[in-house]
């Protein structure tokens, strides 16, 4: 029931997203017909192209046409590539997903790992070290980090490819670039959340019962400490995607984040609309998924 309601609630959100994107791409300066035609073309050619694209019609009418297409799963044709938008989006999405999941995995493992450690070893050099790591991870520009990784691990050491797509070896450096950013935030949040939970009575009780430290830490404390961390993971997806733009560009990774940015620069309206809509869907789906995860880690959370 709950999920059905959440799905229904998502529909107006999606429609609002499409409307905002639809109107805003038409408000920024830049004429797709001129971009397609090139600087050499005469105004007459540009007018003809604009009519071909249907851009000479009122914006609201264009929007209605777009919605009608959307209803039957047709996102239109890319101005620039001349191919169906849905095809471009689906072709480029898996690479981004691959990168995002690998980055997320690194974020979670590294972030939670050092978060727990620094909570347990509070106030030691280890704790202070992770603070530095966390701040560095969040504040290092991905662009710079990516280039440093390339210089060290590809050019100097020759261990991994400097860019491209294909094997797991190509995935390592971009995933680390993306993952270190998330790891810093997660580490800090896990630490503070853990410290709070470790002070709770039930943790002291569990320890007093003579349970092994390991069991107290992971079964009793960590599980509860993760609730805010999981919330943040869902919300961080947006930040992840914006970092993915830079990561995909530097590593020549053929993902949807870069596709969307080049579509904006080329004023490829259908492609912008299609990919933003797709990313909005992914964002909503991810946050729904986070809700499911809550229920798993904290059985007290139930949705009426």
């Amino acid at each position: 029931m709950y999920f059905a309601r959440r799905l229904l609630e998502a529909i107006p959100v999606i429609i609002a997203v499409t409307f905002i994107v639809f109107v805003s791409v038409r408000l920024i300066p830049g004429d797709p017909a001129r971009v397609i035609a090139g600087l050499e073309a005469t105004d007459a050619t540009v007018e003809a192209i604009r009519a071909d694209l249907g851009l000479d019609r009122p914006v609201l009418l264009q929007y209605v046409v777009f919605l009608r297409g959307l209803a039957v799963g047709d996102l239109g044709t890319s101005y620039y590539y001349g191919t169906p938008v849905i095809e471009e989006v689906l072709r480029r999405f898996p690479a981004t997903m691959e990168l995002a999941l690998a980055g997320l995995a690194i974020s979670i493992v590294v972030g939670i790992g050092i978060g727990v450690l620094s909570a347990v070893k509070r106030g030691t050099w280890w704790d202070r070290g992770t603070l530095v790591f966390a701040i560095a991870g969040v504040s290092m520009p991905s662009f710079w980090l990516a280039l440093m990784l390339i210089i060290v691990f590809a050019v100097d050491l020759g261990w991994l490819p400097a860019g491209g797509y294909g094997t797991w070896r190509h995935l390592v450096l971009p995933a680390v670039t993306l993952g270190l950013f998330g790891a810093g935030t997660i580490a800090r949040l896990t630490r503070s959340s853990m410290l709070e939970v470790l002070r709770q009575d039930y943790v002291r009780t569990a320890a007093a019962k003579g349970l092994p430290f390991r069991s107290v830490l992971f079964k009793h404390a960590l599980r509860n400490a993760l609730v805010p961390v999981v919330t943040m993971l869902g919300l961080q997806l947006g930040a992840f995607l914006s970092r993915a733009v830079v990561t995909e560009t530097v590593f020549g990774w053929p993902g949807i984040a870069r596709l969307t940015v080049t579509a904006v620069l080329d004023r490829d309206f259908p492609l912008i609309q299609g990919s933003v809509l797709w990313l909005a869907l992914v964002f909503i789906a991810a946050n729904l998924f986070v809700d499911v995860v809550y229920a798993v880690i904290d059985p007290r959370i139930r949705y009426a």
Partner: protein
Amino acid sequence: MKTFIALIAALSLSVGLAQGGTLRILLSSQLTTLEPQDTTDTDSAAVRFQIYNGLVRMTEDGNVVGDLAESWEVSSDGTAYTFTLHDGVKFHDGTALDAAAVVTSFERLLEEDRNTSSTAYFQPIVTGVEVVSDLQVRFHLNEPFAPFLNTLAHAAGHIMSPAGIEQFGETYGQNPVGSGPYRFVEWVRGERLVLERFDDYFAGTPPMERIEYRIVPEASTRVALLETGEADVILRVSPDEANRLRGMSGVELMNTPTARAMFLAINLTRAPFDDVRVRQAINHAVNVRAITDALFGEDVPQLDSPLAPNVFGYVPTLRYDFDPDRALELLADAGFEPGDIAIDLWSPNGRYVQDATVAQAIAQDLDTFGFDVNLRLFGDFSEYIQVAFVEDRGDMMLLGWSPSTLEAEGGLYQVLHGDRANQFANNSGYDNPDVNRLIEEARSETTEEGRLAKYGEAQAIIMNDAPWLFLYPQPVITAHASNVSGVVILPSEHLVVRDTVKD
């Protein structure tokens, strides 16, 4: 059995690698389509030079030579061009490339309701194309048009397979069928494009087994991939990176002057820039030589014409040396002090080689001279062209102009002829009847000397009128592994690897 197959696969893979028959090229921007008649981006066109042939083609030095055409004749009135094709040319789908195929290809381009960037080169001048014999084809023009051969050499003139057009229709751009040395194999959009040797190529066996293009937008990553040996040829190396690569073993750099003239259009529709003395003063107030020396090295010249030196019709006329005293005199003549004049100077950022850096240096020179300069940089080129050409022009706007046909008609008409004043692409609003007339007359001059005389006269007037702040021809830097030879960058900035060999 499975193990056996895997073993064979591994063996064949290692053999493939050992032969080293793959040329790996890194491009910087997304490929759009491989259909010749509808391409605006340089890289897609560059890929097509391997897949297709035109009737004629451009060489590295900007000359037009035969490609599919063995020879050609021009009628005495200059309105009919008859081409004789090489015998036995085949498309990649096995069909014959004969006169009928050429006609089919061009008739498609000339269809009235086709509105692509490329139709504009042919529709206004070509009235018909006909089959004369199996291997002879004739083009009819509505009037003598001396730059016609250059126009034919444009990438839009590549001949498409009629059977391929029939088979693929709308998706031809993703399934190109040409007659060139390498045939299309695979295109994974956004990632890579693969070509393979075409064994039946009419002009001899192509040197490489495979050509693989990859898209890597970030310049530093392209350099890293070349350094690690993961790429053989990389495009658009920045001057900084080039300095780092220089002297590195195993890497060679090519610095190619292109046909793209870089300039700042001065807005003649606004006072005081409607005064020629003010515009000349601006030209004397900027030390272009110092800027190019610092950024690109001494090989890159300062423009002494609105055309780059490797464009046909280029005649050096006048160069504005850095001379602030002369600039002050000119301004005083016009009744101004530098401090009286405010300049809105606009430039794209990231469109041309070092564009923003150049604009900043120029703004600094103008500021030092005493003008009140307001510099605005645009990271988004689509926005820039809308603003700088249509909505709200500044006083000076940076632009690079490369005539696609590599001759003076393309280099002068669209940016400096009165027909195009105050619209694309003549946004200085320059309209001098003498220049207009000379550009028009040059079209029907049938001799090279006659054309050069007209163009030379036009260039002298333009330089004196100074509708632009004249800068330099844009240089492009390409790098490749030392074991690769025969890499060609055309003056049109296209990378051609038809004859490239890798040891």
